[in-house]
């Protein structure tokens, strides 16, 4: 109860800093903050079709954020999540390309998502391996690998996977409808993708908080040397954590390909990898707030299209709000730690 109250206060504090800050910026460019926030809200929750689009952003964003949580638990900063997402998209697209005209599209689709998760986790393993064997800090390894992943996807789209007779960065040939992530008639979001994300939340909650693996992971994160005394190998835990992290990001990439764009495009990640880092930081590295914060961020992303349409404002305001929230959160959490230190 005490805990809940504290989180509530934190949230209100964060909004109390970020809200007026963004309003001030809006007022400076001569726009009414009330109108802007109103459009953002009605543009994301105003109708079922709008909300479905919010969910379409929420699914990959949540998957990436959950993945990051594993890495953070073990003490790793998996900045490479963006590249893992991209490689996941590549893996899924690769299998879907092979599966055109296959007898069982559903099987192809499942294999494709698996391939996405696999390639994402391999890409993450590379960062983990560089850290453990090469002594390369995972932040630098991750950033480097993100650039390499971008290079790979651009090369594929402009090279071996290009449309016949066409050389364009627009993306590859769209996949036939049978290979799209299954939808229900009239829906704008796939209930199956939704179920996938919900399952990932439940499983992650159990693994991190109730399984022996989760507890050990936490121990590794807190003190890698001490766990040696208990006969645990920190390296194995670090690698396992980053592999799971990469698999979930890769799955998100697979969803982007099979459920959203139905082809591979250079911007297939939509920046959700980097955005998920902000989600997890804003959640103070805890699981429960993640789905809610991801929903908030997804709503900002979707609602922000209203700003150029209705107010001739640039839609980058969504990014400003997200950034302001994270900065205020870091401030609030930092102050709380300082206060705790002073008290204790």
């Amino acid at each position, binding site marked *: 109860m005490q805990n809940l109250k504290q989180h509530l206060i934190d949230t209100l504090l964060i909004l*109390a800093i970020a809200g*007026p800050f963004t309003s001030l910026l809006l007022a400076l460019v001569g726009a009414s903050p009330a109108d802007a*926030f*109103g459009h953002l809200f009605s543009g994301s929750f105003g109708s079922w079709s709008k909300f479905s689009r919010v969910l379409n952003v929420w699914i990959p964003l949540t998957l990436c954020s959950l993945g990051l949580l594993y890495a953070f638990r073990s003490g790793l900063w998996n900045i490479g999540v963006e590249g893992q997402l991209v490689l996941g998209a590549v893996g899924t697209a690769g299998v879907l390309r092979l599966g055109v005209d296959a007898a069982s599209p559903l099987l192809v689709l499942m294999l494709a998502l698996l391939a996405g998760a696999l390639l994402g986790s391999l890409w993450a393993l590379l960062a983990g391996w560089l850290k453990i064997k090469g002594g390369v800090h995972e932040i630098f390894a991750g950033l480097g690998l993100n650039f390499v992943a971008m290079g790979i996807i651009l090369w594929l789209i402009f090279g071996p996977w290009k449309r016949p007779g066409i050389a*364009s*960065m627009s993306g590859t040939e769209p996949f036939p409808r049978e290979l799209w992530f299954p939808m229900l008639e009239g829906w*704008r979001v796939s209930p199956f993708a939704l179920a996938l994300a919900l399952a990932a939340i439940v499983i992650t909650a159990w693994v991190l908080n109730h399984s022996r693996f989760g507890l050990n992971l936490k121990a590794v994160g807190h003190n890698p040397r001490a766990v040696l005394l208990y006969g645990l190998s920190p390296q194995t835990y670090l690698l396992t954590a980053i592999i799971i992290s990469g698999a979930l990001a890769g799955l998100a990439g697979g969803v982007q390909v099979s459920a959203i764009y139905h082809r591979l495009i*250079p911007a297939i990640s939509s920046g959700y990898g980097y955005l998920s880092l902000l989600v997890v930081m804003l959640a103070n590295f805890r699981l429960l707030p993640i789905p809610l914060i991801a929903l908030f961020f997804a709503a900002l992303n979707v609602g922000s*299209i209203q700003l*150029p349409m209705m107010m001739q404002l640039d839609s980058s305001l969504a990014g400003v709000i997200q950034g302001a929230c994270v900065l205020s959160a870091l401030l609030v959490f930092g102050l709380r730690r300082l206060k705790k230190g002073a008290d204790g």
Partner: protein
Amino acid sequence: MRFRVRAFLGWATLAAICLLNVPAVFGSDKAELTFGMLLVGPYNDHGWSQAHYEGGRYVEAKLPGSKMIYIDKVNPADRPGLTIPAVVDELVDKGAQLIIGNSDDMKDGMREAASQHPEIHFLHISGDDVLTGNAPPNLSNLMGRMEYGKMIAGFAAGLTTKDGRVAYLGPLINEETRRLAASAYLGARHAWTVVRGMPAETFKFRVSWIGFWFNIPGVTADPSQVARNFFDTGYDVILSGIDTNEALIVANQQRKEGKAVYALPYDFIGSCNSAPEACLGVPYYNWGPDYTRIAKSVINGSWNQAWTWSGPNWEAINDADSSAIGFIIGDALSQANREQLKAFIADLGSGKLNLFTGPLSYQDGSDYLKAGEIATDRQVWYLKQLLQGMEGASK
């Protein structure tokens, strides 16, 4: 405590405003026709997207009671996570009965959105879904016959180049961009060999493709860099084939460094204005008249699915109310060359001159048109390769 109260009040106000705002957003529309416009680039790009934006404004002026809602930068690089069906839903929510999508990049998305909204009319610019039979019944295609504009632009370049070196700053490679680059080549070659009487071997026409319709940092080649490279390697005139104005800007910079170089921008009537002294002219689209005709057909219920390839009004190619494409002569084109250019335009218009006449070969040496053969519309539209004599990738 003060913070908490303030935050709570802030959110309560916000919620109230949202509730009050919803009817204001959706309910106050008395216009006869609301049409939605998806622009791939910024509405003020001095190029392709601005030409469409102005076309939309033209409709509003000609059809009182009509209203345009536009979304610009409709591409996944500028707006992460965005898809065409999603923005179309958005426009339909706001009452749009006609949706115009202005990019080849939107082809698949427009088709998908059109099947999701059978009661709404869709116009996909530059596409061929109606020709290929892939279009749902509520989707039409429209394009301007820019081949003439490019021939005229190429002709101006061929008249002006000192050593017979003309470059083409291309976007991505597809049928449209191949045929436009080829048209520019034919115009330039005609000026160099027929009008100036120079030997064909001394003429060089180089095409470089950046990979998309405009610069996406880190994804496409940088058009400014490509343009500089052209000038550094001896080309003195650049024809732009991309949506934005980099070729002209770079030409202008190089002129300030003392080089006698020129450029011809593309798409938008006002493109020369950013650097008139470097501009030989601009072939541009005038979407207004076709948009107005199509908007009217939606209002009075006479909409018919069509693939339209609109040409210039040869009587007055710069007539804003009738010509789908035009050419504005730039300040940098010499007086003598202006006369040549006007004669060339007259010959194209009268049919005395058709540059898509054989013998013409593809880049790999295979036959495109036999001697005396005149290309059909389809042969021009679906040009399979660049033409022999052009340097640069065909696919």
